[in-house]
């Protein structure tokens, strides 16, 4: 049984208080707006690519600590990676989220995002954790760097 302490790890609340890459950069290659209709959390995300390379992911949004922190961690993680690498990271994170707590996630791939593995025990919060990640996937599709 996960407890509150292990769910709200320091890293998560730190990103919530001091989010990275918040504030939308101009002239994005793709720009998306995603909502979690069950709670009203929102994220706007701007993606700038150079060829296959992710140059910058900036965002703005309102929402709970989980959705905001996980978007912050994500944007930091994928900066400078190729679109394919980013997609692998997103897929790995999605797998952790749908594992009901059985997969902790590989820190080599997921970096700080492993801190969110406790969320997968709380079905109602999974969508929070994935909000920014699904937005980025969508943006990459729009920018045609993945299919």
């Amino acid at each position, binding site marked *: 049984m996960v407890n509150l302490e292990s769910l709200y790890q320091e890293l998560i609340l730190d990103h919530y208080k001091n989010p990275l890459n918040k504030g939308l950069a101009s002239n994005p290659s793709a720009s998306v707006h995603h909502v979690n209709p069950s709670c009203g*959390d929102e994220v706007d995300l701007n993606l700038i690519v150079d060829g296959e390379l992710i140059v910058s992911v900036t965002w703005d949004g309102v*929402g709970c600590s989980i959705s905001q922190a996980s978007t912050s961690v994500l944007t930091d993680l994928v900066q400078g990676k190729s679109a394919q690498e980013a997609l692998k990271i997103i897929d790995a994170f999605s797998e952790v989220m749908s594992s009901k707590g059985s997969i902790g996630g590989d820190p080599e791939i997921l970096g700080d995002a492993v801190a969110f593995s406790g969320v997968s025990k709380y079905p109602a919060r999974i969508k929070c954790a994935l909000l920014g990640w699904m937005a980025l996937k969508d943006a990459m599709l729009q920018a045609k760097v993945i299919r």
Partner: protein
Amino acid sequence: MTLDVARIKGDFPLLSRKVRHDLPLIYLDSGATSQKPVAVIEAESDFYRLHNSAVHRGAHLIAEEATDIYEGARIKVARFIGAESADEVIFTKSATESINLLAYSLGQSDTKSSFHLKPGASIVVSELEHHANLIPWQELAKRSGASLRWFPATEDGRLDLSNLDQVIDSSTKIVALTHQSNVTGAITPLSEIVKQAKSVGALTILDSCQSVPHFPVDVRELGIDFLAFSGHKMVGPTGIGVLWGRKELLNQISPFLFGGSMVTSVSMTEATFADTPRKFEAGVPNMAGAAGLSAAVDYLESLGMEAIHQHELSLNDYALAQLKEIAGLRLIGPYENIDRGAVFSFTLEGIHPHDVGQSLDDRGIAVRTGHHCAWPLMKKFGISGTTRASFYLYNSLEDVDRLVEGIYETQRFFTARGL
């Protein structure tokens, strides 16, 4: 306290559930759905064990029994809300279906009808509406060309009636309002509204999802035309709702769902329809649900709707006094214990409702978070959601204490972590 809550809790099996960390459950989410007493659960299972058969259809004993139970439920519900006759009670699957039924049927009114909607006509709702009493009217407005108008919400989450006769004017055909807000708990004062609607010849439709379960409602006293509610919020089963309407109106409006048991004759190209309530109940209905709803009404009446109301007023007094004292807590809804139900929507400074809900859940306290299907109201208050604790007949003063304690602990937990 007028209700013996300890004894009542014993009637509801789910309330003795243990939840996270083996804690006893404190259920404060009755605004979403209520728990069910044994009597209701057994009424459903007894129906299946002893009397299950298609109503109005079979030529045999069990079918007669099923019909008696189903029509008996109709009579019971009719008495419970003060209807003139059982023919005024239509069983649907939910309040949502009841309201959509009306929106579709009224939308079919022919050009000669006084309810015919066309450009220039208006439909009136409010900023406090649940999506179920908003979107069907948005869609009807779109289909018909009528315009949608609304009463704004006041700062304390009530209807702002200051422009009553501008909002409801001679163009108004339909006034559809919530009887009690599922977010703020505010109870709608109806007499002036109904008077104004009557004076312009508009129909009044009440979304009583949050009123019928909580205090005495008498449709004739209210002077309204239609009323919708769900069984599952009034200690009844899921999958059954009610539409009440004045008989002469129900006989005027078109049917909504078409199928078996609602006709007087059928050829390949044409059908003619029975009178109310049959014409609105196509198909084999939720018979076990009706049996359960009937038992739910019995249960509520055995406690007394007035006693239930008084109980909630006591909970209000007790809760409001303590919630007021919590620094950083903003109540979305009336602070004074007048014309409000025991529903407390709030925000906590610096902590998102989702995180509040998660923390309370970790302490065994079940609340709801989010926009509560009242998104426009959230926008009005400039928030993305609230945490909502909603109380019912099985909740005690101790449950209030647990909530308040949980809120303080939540604040301490997140403050200690720098929020």
